């Protein structure tokens, strides 16, 4: 399980892997859902990873490669613990 403290995402071992921070304050309405379940941000014209359809391992690997990958996280997702 990943811990989210304020806007920071940490692994179980306490490693900071991502800070959620959208400078454009994008909302759900700004995202287009494509057929393959990916999300497209109309503001930045880039793909956002929907963590609803990802495994924890896959997410950690992705963020270790690129911390600037944008995510959408639901507070209902059991992969995350909101501290």
């Amino acid at each position: 399980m990943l811990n989210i403290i304020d806007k920071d995402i940490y692994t179980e071992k306490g490693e900071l892997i991502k800070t959620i921070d959208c400078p454009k304050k994008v909302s759900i309405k700004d995202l287009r859902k494509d057929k393959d379940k990916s999300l497209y941000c109309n503001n930045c014209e880039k793909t956002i990873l929907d963590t609803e359809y990802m495994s924890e391992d896959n997410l950690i690997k992705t963020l270790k490669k690129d911390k600037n990958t944008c995510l959408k996280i639901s507070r209902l997702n059991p992969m995350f613990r909101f501290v």
Partner: protein
Amino acid sequence: MSDIEIQNNENLRVIKTIREKDYNRYSLSAEDRDKNYLITKTIEPNEDFFSRRMVLQNYKTGEIIKVTDRKMYVQYGEEVNYPYEQWKELLTYQIYQGSKKDLYTWAMYLVPKDAKNGERFYIEDIIGDIVAERFWSGIYRAKNGVGIWNGKDLEIDESLYEETFMIG
């Protein structure tokens, strides 16, 4: 499935809701009737809360399963497939994911008569089903929220439910 709740962070005046099941002749005092608009609504299904389910049978083993689709996303990012050549469709049907117990009843909001147009109120118990969030195959309704008085009714501020997501 639990409803999505938001707090009265704006310290708004609170709107009371009375539902049919709780109503009796003593539910409203004379003062309640005098000082409030009684906004009464019937509760009917919201199309957004219907979702499809299927019953499939495996040709080889005879196993019968209930699924949301032939291709399903399940917990922790796994994708499960039930291909046509392996699974026969026995049934497709719809379920209602809103509050079934309240369907085809009525309820009322008590809105103070001194409400100003555009005033925001906190509603502890929203009448009817409003989608607050979708996650996996679940559709979650809003339990409470903010209503904006337009002179005749309260319009729910649905933008507040976006706070159940983090994006960035």
